[in-house]
């Protein structure tokens, strides 16, 4: 509340006091007095009336008027009683019988005249009569009494008013006026007017003290002013000097700001401050960087608007880190993607100045926002280069390893698949690396197409791809993935290959088959090689199971030993002569692979070699050895033919014509002395290719035989188109042909068919004379089997040929 003037305060108090006093003395007290006097008078009149009533009764009853005389005497001496009367009731009417004062004429007083009196009437009765007495007092007497009483009151009021007036005047002159004068002086002193005279005339001691104090104050202020002026002068001098220094500092600061701006601009950085109260960012930085955000240097951006620009994938983590930074003072260094233009995000590094523990959290938070987009994208490219395969665009072994460890850490379970392209080395060797690369790229495309993006696809090396799937897939899903891949890659006709690309896929699960990458990889590798074993030239898929590993190790070891054997020339060709009944001699031999000194079945050796490119080396060894044998034959055996077995892999991926011509040329042996045996499977997979190869072989004089005929799925049309020279009847139809009617009928049909097609027949596995005779009856003129000779090394063959050239019945 604003302070008020002492005059107004006193004025209000005095006015209120005066009003109260006037009201009390002139209104309330007189009214109360009048009321009191009236009540007293009426009481007195009642007493007199009562006495009168009694005295009248006494006078009438006792005939004693003494009391009445006393009453009269009393009333005469009492100025309050102005009138009195005694009335008797006779015959129902009231008649005045006596009045006081005598002859006052009560009966003649009008109603208005009676109103000038205060009247008290009391009844009385005696044994003989009744009546009433009336006592009255003139109201004028009452008013006179009131006046008499109130005059002192008015005198007191007047005296009081005079006293109050004197007090007010005294206060006004002695206190208020000096106080107001002092206030004005103090006000002027406060406003700096220190030259005025201070003359407050008063007989009041306290005001005199105040006046003296004001004088002292004025003097002190004057002294202080003089001192201040001196100080001010010094201060101005100092300010002038400091202003100069400040201007210099400002210039330097401006230059620093310019340098800072240049630095910020060159580093594509923004400095931000965050108002915690208003939840707003304020950015400072190079204009170009600010404009990148659609901001200017005055821009205050609400937190929610910044968050709206954050990429949804990194929004939650940013909120979490930023909140921790603000509340806990934790370090803030977070890469975020911000939408700089609609739909386009750039990478930024958001850092915050650490806020020490205990600092007032309501203060501004500071930090920087550095444009890391270019660098981040370069890093991403470097990362991708480090983690991806350049040729296929899939991940590489590093990414594969990381993906596996991440899957183990996060999901705890998954499936690891290894898949490679069957006979890829053959593709590379026969079709060239460009074709091999096209196959790899095509297969990678199929993998990307068929495998969900959440899984990691990586090229581990060569034609081997690894896939990390987490969580684990069930067997049905894995089989489904395999089928899609198999069909997808087999359909690719743009690779320049004659045969469809096939794959081998092995899968292992973790943690069931191990928890470290090496163990799980080994399991998947084992499964993949198991698939290769079962593939029969096509695609195959296998899931790892315990026990598979031991077999794989065995076969792996066997491959190593075969390689060693090849290197050490431990492998040999043995030859089994083929009897010609029409020529009555052995005109040809079949070269059979043998590994002397090793107990491994030779078919196991061949199957194992077929699982890899080893078969090509083995095949080449066979052709080379066969030609060397022919070259070494004496002249009398210059018409001997040698048949060699060609595996489907060798047939498709090794240039047989070139190989045969090579060793034919090296050994100076006519290629027409070589007969190759292929199985039905070889041309079933791609009859057109087989046809093409066979034509080229035929062109150089090489004869061709279908081996193990009847066990596969060849068609007569294929036989016709392929221009086959010989069909070798599988031993299954030869054994017991003399007793087995069904075998007999089959062979009989084959004979007729071969006659129709102009293809020669060779029966394999002839072991008894009875079988030989039946076959001869069926006109199968060429026979091979233990009945005639067992396979033998080349040195024994020469001796056999000399000794038995015309004695077919002698078996070795």
């Amino acid at each position, binding site marked *: 509340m604003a302070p008020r003037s002492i005059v107004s305060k006193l004025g209000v108090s005095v006015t209120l006091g005066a009003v109260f006093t006037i009201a009390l003395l002139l209104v309330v007290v007189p009214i109360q007095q009048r009321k009191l006097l009236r009540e007293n008078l009426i009481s007195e009149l009642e007493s007199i009336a009562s006495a009168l009533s009694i005295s009248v009764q006494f*006078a009438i009853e006792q*005939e004693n008027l*003494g009391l*009445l005389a006393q009453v009269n005497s009393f009333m005469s001496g009492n100025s309050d009683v102005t009138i009195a009367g005694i009335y008797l009731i006779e015959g129902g009417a009231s008649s005045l019988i006596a009045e*006081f004062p005598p002859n006052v004429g009560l009966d003649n007083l009008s109603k208005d005249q009676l109103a000038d009196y205060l009247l008290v009437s009391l009844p009385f009765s005696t044994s003989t009569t009744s009546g009433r007495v009336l006592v009255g007092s003139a109201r004028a007497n009452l008013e006179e009494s009131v006046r008499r009483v109130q005059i002192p009151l008015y005198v007191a009021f007047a005296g009081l008013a005079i006293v109050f007036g004197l007090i007010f005047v005294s206060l006004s002159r002695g206190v208020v006026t000096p106080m107001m004068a002092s206030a004005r002086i103090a006000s002027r002193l406060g406003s700096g007017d220190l030259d005025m005279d201070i003359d407050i005339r008063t007989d009041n001691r306290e005001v005199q003290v105040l006046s003296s104090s004001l004088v002292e104050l004025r003097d002190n202020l004057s002294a202080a002013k003089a001192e201040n002026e001196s100080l001010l002068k010094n201060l101005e001098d100092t300010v002038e000097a400091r202003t100069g220094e400040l201007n210099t500092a400002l210039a330097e600061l401006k230059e620093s700001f310019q340098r800072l701006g240049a630095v910020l601009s060159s580093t594509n950085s923004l400095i931000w401050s965050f108002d915690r109260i208003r939840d707003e960012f304020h950015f400072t930085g190079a204009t170009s960087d600010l404009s990148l955000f659609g901001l200017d240097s005055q821009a205050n951006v609400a937190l929610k608007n910044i968050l709206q620009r954050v990429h949804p994938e990194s929004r939650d983590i940013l909120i979490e880190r930023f909140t921790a930074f603000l509340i806990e003072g934790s370090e803030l260094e977070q890469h975020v993607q911000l939408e700089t233009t609609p739909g386009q995000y750039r990478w930024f590094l958001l850092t915050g100045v650490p806020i020490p523990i205990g600092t007032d959290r309501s203060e501004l938070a500071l930090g920087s926002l550095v444009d890391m987009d270019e660098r981040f994208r370069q890093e991403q490219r470097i990362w991708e280069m480090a983690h991806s395969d350049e040729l296929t665009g899939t991940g590489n072994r590093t990414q594969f390893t990381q993906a596996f460890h991440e899957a183990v850490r996060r999901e705890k379970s998954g499936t690891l698949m290894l898949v490679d392209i069957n006979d890829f080395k053959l593709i590379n060797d026969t079709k060239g690396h460009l074709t091999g690369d096209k196959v790899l790229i095509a297969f990678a495309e199929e993998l990307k197409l068929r495998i969900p993006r959440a899984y990691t696809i990586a090229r581990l090396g060569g034609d081997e791809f690894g896939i990390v799937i987490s969580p684990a897939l069930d067997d049905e899903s894995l089989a489904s993935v395999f089928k899609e891949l198999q069909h997808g890659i087999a359909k690719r006709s743009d690779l320049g290959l004659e045969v469809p690309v096939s794959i081998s896929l092995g899968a292992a699960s973790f943690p069931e088959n191990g928890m470290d990458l090496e163990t799980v990889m080994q399991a998947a590798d084992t499964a993949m090689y198991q698939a290769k074993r079962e593939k029969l030239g096509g695609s195959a898929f296998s899931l790892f199971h315990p026990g598979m590993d031991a077999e794989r190790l065995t076969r792996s070891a066997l491959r190593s030993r075969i390689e060693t054997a090849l290197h050490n020339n431990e492998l040999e060709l043995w030859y089994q002569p083929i009897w010609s009944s029409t020529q009555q001699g052995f005109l040809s031999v079949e070269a059979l692979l043998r590994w002397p000194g090793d107990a491994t079945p030779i078919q196991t050796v061949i199957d194992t070699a077929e699982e890899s490119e080893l078969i090509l080396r083995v095949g080449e060894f066979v052709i080379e050895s066969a030609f060397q044998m022919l070259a070494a034959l004496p002249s009398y055996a210059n018409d001997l033919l040698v048949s060699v077995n060609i595996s489907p892999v060798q047939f498709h991926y090794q240039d047989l014509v070139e190989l045969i011509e090579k060793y034919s040329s090296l050994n100076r042996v006519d290629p027409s002395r070589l007969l190759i045996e292929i199985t039905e499977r070889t041309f079933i997979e791609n009859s057109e290719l087989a046809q093409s190869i066979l034509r080229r072989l035929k062109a150089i004089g090489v004869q061709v035989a279908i081996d193990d005929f009847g066990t596969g799925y060849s068609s007569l049309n294929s036989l016709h188109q392929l221009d086959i020279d010989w069909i070798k009847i599988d031993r299954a139809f030869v054994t017991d042909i003399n007793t087995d009617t069904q075998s007999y009928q089959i062979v009989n049909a084959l004979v007729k068919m071969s006659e129709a097609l102009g293809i020669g027949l060779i029966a394999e596995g002839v072991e008894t004379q009875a079988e030989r005779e039946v076959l001869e009856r069926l006109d199968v003129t060429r026979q091979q089997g233990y009945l005639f000779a067992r396979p033998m090394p080349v040195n024994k063959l020469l001796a056999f040929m000399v000794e038995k050239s015309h004695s077919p019945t002698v078996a070795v």
Partner: protein
Amino acid sequence: MPWLVLAMALICVDVTAAAADLFVVTAQPSQLSTSLDIQEIMTGRTRKWPDGTPIVVALPSKESPYFEDAGKAWFDGSASAMQRHWLRLVFSGRANVPIYTKSDEEAIAILEANPAAIVVMGIEPPPTFNVMARLN
């Protein structure tokens, strides 16, 4: 004064009609009382003897045999009018308080005790007293 003549005539009539005489007696000497009007004294209009002594009026009480007679004699024939008259006088302060006597003996005793008294009695008073009037 016509009303006085009338009053006297009425008194005469009444006295004549009374069965017994009434005596208005005082202890004052006769020379003092003869000049006074009995009517004036009994109605209180004359309140002092010639020598200035206040007259003490003794009226017959309502138990007195002369109650009605006195009323008839001086108060228009009504004893109650006599009572009211004296009540009015005393109340208005225009007369001294009268004494009421129930018998002649009391009247004589009053006379003996108060020489300024004037009483009404039915017998002849002793000679020491002065009969101011005899009413019949």
